[in-house]
């Protein structure tokens, strides 16, 4: 390892991206390296996109900025490939590691880039980490990272999990081991298709005064959702509790006063299902 290695994690709040970046730092430290790791948060909410950064060097780092030209990009949630510019700045010859049930060959990357895929959801669920709809995939992803790069040793990762993971250590060790063994990597060259082009900050029109540039109605936050409320109208008493308790104002009403889900805003938190007195709301997994 000649120079600093820069790793960028993309995940959603609740998946463990921040813990992954810190755990990697702890493991690298156990390998005798000098790590630096930090997250970027926007809104601190389960399901919101989260970015975290880890640098690994042999001596104290001379920079304190986020990582814009990563050597490795780790994507904990495959839907982020569609909604976030995850491959922005990925170096030539860099590696994209994705949690995906699809084979690595289907990932599209910069010419010359390496792609790796591991079905970390399946691994996490197998070991009872998180839930079926929100599996905690970070340790499986780190195991895969240890397999396909020389960023960190599996021994150090295993030790770091034993020392620093707050709960379910044996399950997390097993998940890392499965990630290590199950990951598949392909090299080769494929045409580069950016996942989402980054808007140039300079061209965004700035609003007058301290106003949001758009109404929050135009921010369709439903892509965070992994569960969807289904309203069984035959049980509904039109009590409006779903509307009252919804933190995102994701219910409106039809002419007869029955609730209608505003699907662009529901983040699938399930509060409505818990609060509904006649239990007329059921949370079902998003297709």
């Amino acid at each position: 390892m000649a120079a600093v290695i820069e790793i960028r994690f993309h995940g959603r709040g609740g998946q463990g991206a921040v813990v992954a970046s810190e755990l990697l730092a702890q493991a690298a430290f156990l390998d005798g390296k000098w790590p630096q790791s930090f997250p970027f948060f926007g809104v601190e909410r389960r399901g919101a996109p989260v970015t975290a950064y880890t640098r690994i060097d042999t001596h104290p780092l001379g920079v304190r900025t986020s990582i814009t030209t990563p050597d490795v990009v780790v994507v904990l949630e495959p839907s982020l490939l569609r909604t976030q510019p995850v491959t922005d700045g990925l170096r030539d010859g860099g590696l994209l590691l994705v949690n995906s049930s699809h084979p690595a060959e289907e990932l599209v990357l910069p010419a010359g880039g390496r792609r790796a895929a591991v079905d970390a959801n399946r691994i996490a669920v197998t070991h009872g980490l998180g839930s079926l709809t929100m599996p905690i995939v970070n340790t499986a992803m780190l195991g895969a990272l240890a397999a396909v790069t020389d960023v960190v040793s599996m021994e150090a990762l295993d030790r770091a999990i034993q020392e620093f993971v707050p709960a379910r250590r044996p399950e997390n060790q097993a998940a890392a081991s499965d990630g290590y063994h199950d990951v598949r990597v392909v090299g080769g060259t494929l045409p580069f298709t950016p996942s989402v082009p980054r808007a140039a900050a300079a061209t965004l029109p700035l609003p007058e005064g301290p106003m949001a540039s758009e109404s929050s109605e135009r921010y369709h936050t439903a892509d965070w959702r992994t569960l969807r409320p289904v309203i069984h109208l035959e049980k509904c008493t039109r009590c409006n509790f779903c509307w009252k308790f919804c933190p995102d104002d994701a219910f409106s009403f039809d002419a007869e006063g029955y609730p209608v889900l505003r699907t662009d805003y529901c983040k699938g938190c399930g509060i409505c299902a818990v609060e509904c007195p006649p239990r007329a709301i059921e949370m079902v997994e998003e297709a």
Partner: protein
Amino acid sequence: MTLQVMSGNSAQSYAAALARVHVIAAYPITPQTTIVEKLADFAASGQLPAQFVKVESEHSALQVCVSASSLGARTYTATSSQGLLLMHELLHWAAGLRTPIVMGVVNRAVAPPWNLGADHTDTMSQRDTGWVQFYAESNQEVLDTVLQAYRLAEDPAVRLPVMVTEDAFYLSHTVEPVEVPAQTEVDAFLPAREARAVLVPGRAARLGSFTGPDHYVEFRHEVAQAMARVPEVFRGVEEDYRSRMHRYHGGAVATYRVDDADAVLVTMGTMSTTARSVVDELRAEGRKVGLAKLRLFRPFPAAEFRELAGLVDRIGVVDRSFTFGAEGPAATEVAAAIYSGPHHPFLTNYMVGLGGREVTPQLVRAIFDRLLGAEGPGTRWMDLPQDAGEVTHG
């Protein structure tokens, strides 16, 4: 002494615990919250025999610390941004009552618009409250400075509250290796606070009660004198820390490669790490540049800057906050310090990094290029999308 990978916030928590604080009172605010969460864990587990007081606001948090400190307790609190602003009234009380509270502040931008990023506006707008202010560059410096802050605050010649600040996310949530001293080492450096309780149960006394112009001036003058003694006391504290812990962060102003420099940047907080690397790069290219990292902002280390002014031709002060209608506060202070000395190098001001905007190596290089070129006086707002960054006041 053990080397551990931890965040800047954890460095605050460990330092407060190692200082054996008696009372912690705090109200949560991002990005500070994890500091007091960890201290709450320490207190709840019995690892730290301290009282953790839950309060309904930052204003109350500081009031609890002022009261406990007046009874002789060693106290700690932490806050950030809007929380610090809500404390404003009590900040004056803490200093005026000479309570040696140590507070961690995570430097975060002030609303509107809402923002969680690194920005020094929160603490800069409290610079006139009588608190000593340190700005840290690394998690190690956070831990060491909090321990030093207690020694300084409780010194009989000082008895003033101290803020130890760290940049939001770039330190608060960044994990990196930190040397943690053993409890015995800290105990030797920082003994129990000498009980100089102002309020004693059973003995009637008043604190901060009405004082007319016949004595008010004397009270304020005492605070001013205490503040004036800080540089000398701090030198002793830091030297003692260095001899015991073998770490030294460079005094009130940590200079780097300034001796033969043509141009020097004055920086604060985490931007200093990146700027130091750029200094090395430019030196390798044969350009004579240096760095002066401002650690202690209150009291302002004017003597150090008068000395620096005798060494260099051009000084660029890089601010992470702006005083509307004037300039960056560090620039104002540096200019005022230099004015009373014999050397008056060219001095200009650069605004960077508001609201957590990145201070990249490229940006620091651009600043040095400007400073070494045909730069004029005034304030340059760097890194704006269009060329509209000039603000000068005539």
